[in-house]
């Protein structure tokens, strides 16, 4: 075997095998079982603790379509959880780029619920069970201003309704009425909420972050500044499982389906690392 050749393998070979590892499981899907991490369970518990009569769940999003595969299932799973518990859900977008995506998520999850609803009480109604506050730049402004008045900083919702005319907004005024803010992000917006909203107004904050940010947030979960989090696609899949186990809400479990490709890609990278090291040591012994 020519170890030297293996060591200096063309990057394009790696790229190609990687592409195959991702595509094949998508074409021939399998479903894998997994364990649930503590931080995910904590977030689930924190949402369980919201008092539906008095408080709401605020989902703050600042992801763009680029991290859709990771962040989108998180937003949907949270909405499902909120709807299943009849907790009013407020959603905002910190950046305009992601705003249309949230609209799509709301439509999809509302559609799932309402397709099975039998009465008006049973359905998810816009303005009563969910409000999409839309987008106000720059992000720091709404984060601070929601401590005073949510309708003040979001006078109109995403669809152009006056927010103060919506049923649920009459009792949800500011962070005092927010059970937990879950910031879904590819960046560090949960920390902005911790630094600017929690320090000043004491609101609970949770995170739904891409896997890349997760290591950064563990310290905050340990100190309790973050009540819990969904870390990456796996976190989203776990949350989907938790909601599904408890409430049987149905709907597509996007994150769970993607886990097969994930596994293949991870295993491939590990195989590459092993190959690289075997070749490296074989070369070293030779020289």
């Amino acid at each position, binding site marked *: 075997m020519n170890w030297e050749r293996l060591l200096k393998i063309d*990057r394009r070979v790696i790229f190609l095998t990687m592409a195959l590892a991702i595509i094949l499981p998508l074409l021939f899907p399998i479903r894998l079982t997994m364990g649930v991490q503590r931080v995910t369970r904590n977030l689930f518990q924190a949402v369980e603790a919201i008092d539906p009569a*008095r408080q709401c769940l605020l989902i703050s999003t600042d992801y763009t379509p680029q991290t859709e595969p990771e962040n989108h299932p998180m937003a949907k799973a949270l909405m499902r959880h909120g709807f299943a518990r009849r907790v009013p859900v407020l959603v905002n977008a910190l950046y305009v780029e992601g705003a249309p995506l949230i609209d799509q998520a709301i439509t999809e999850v509302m559609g799932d619920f309402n397709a099975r609803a039998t009465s008006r009480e049973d359905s998810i109604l816009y303005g009563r069970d969910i409000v999409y506050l839309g987008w106000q730049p720059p992000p720091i402004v709404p984060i601070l201003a929601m401590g005073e008045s949510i309708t003040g900083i979001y006078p109109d919702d995403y669809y152009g309704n006056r927010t103060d005319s919506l049923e649920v907004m009459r009792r949800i*005024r500011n962070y005092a009425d927010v059970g937990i803010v879950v910031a879904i992000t590819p960046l560090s917006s949960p920390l902005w909420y911790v630094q600017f909203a*929690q*320090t000043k107004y004491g609101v609970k904050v949770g995170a739904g972050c891409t896997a890349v*940010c997760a290591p*950064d947030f563990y310290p905050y979960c340990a100190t309790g500044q973050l009540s819990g989090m969904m870390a990456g696609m796996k976190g989203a899949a776990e949350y989907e499982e938790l909601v599904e186990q408890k409430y049987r809400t149905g709907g597509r479990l996007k994150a769970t389906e993607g886990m097969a490709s994930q596994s293949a890609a991870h295993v491939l990278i590990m195989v590459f690392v092993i190959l690289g090291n075997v070749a490296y040591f074989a070369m070293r012994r030779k020289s």
Partner: protein
Amino acid sequence: MRWACILCLLTLPAGWAAAQEGAAVGGAPVETAVAGADAGEAPLGQPAEPAPPAPFPAPAGATARDKPNDGGGAIAIRWQPVPGAMAYRIERAGEDGAFVPVGAASALENAYEDRVEDGVAYRYRVVALGPAGEEGASPATLPARSRPQWFNGDLTGVALSVVAFILVVAWFIRRARRGEQLFVRRIAGLEAVDEAVGRATEMGRPVLYIPGTGRIEDIATVASMNVLGEIAKKTAEFGTPILVPNRDPVVFTVSREVVKGAYTAAGRPDAYDPNSVFFLVENSLAFAAAVDGIMVRERPATNFLLGSFFAESLILAEVGASTGAIQIAGTDQVPQLPFFVVACDYTLMGEELYAASAYLSREPLMLGALKGQDAGKLLFMALLVAGTIFSLITGLDAGWLLSTSGY
């Protein structure tokens, strides 16, 4: 001598404790009113109800006072919980005396924050709600007025530590000003800067300096601007072309001034090429796409990636590595550091990026600031150890000295 100052700082926690206690007890102008002093007094107004609900034990010790450390507009109401209560209703009365419900709290809570107008006197009472709709109203509190505070007493510790740090750094700067030699150890990534610029000169290829993809709000960008000044001086001396693509237009305006200033300072204003600093695009991925293009087409011999980087860090670093360039990276975005460590030749981790401009310029005053950073680290370490030992021995939580509002 040097340690004397640090020792002084170590006594700070005691100061914090005193300050925090002061704020809580007498420091803030608090208007507290305790109900129950005259428990016999009948509530002045009752909400009109068709049939009076069955009685239920009333919450004791209800108080209302201005919410401390805020911008006004809030009164904090507290009470002692009633066993068996399902929830609480909070009622408010203005000058006219009629109580109206303003909010509710769950059985687990014993505090409520009411949003009110500043300067107006309000009285409150807390009604405990029983499982079968019984009600028990606490006596009315004395009137409380909300008002804005000028200083947020919760942050006394933060304010003091800012002041303390300013003093320490100022002290080191003064020492530096007096001409004392301050020792700074070798930092590999920064030692390599000369070699990296020199290599570009030898190969006749440009140096690429990416000041991050953050905005000027990210302090790492400001630090990067400072390093850019030093590196541009070197490229001016060596006569090597430098390319500075920018993602944020405000950063672009700064980096242009910095590079032009550096060429002037190096005595080569004529060598400054106004096209060397340019704006590309705000979208960070479009920026990455364009910079990848620059890397494979202009083939810079040296890439500096210093500043605030986000997800695009590895795209830039891997493409840079594939072109064979020497790469010196640095960021304070901790999640991106592993990628730089893996894909670049040298990586400045967090604080090293902030130290870089001092290290490169060797200006005594800047080195003084660097020494201040070291003193801060010693202080942190000492506090951690002292706090741990104290807590383990006494069983108290020394960490509460570090608590700010919200926790």
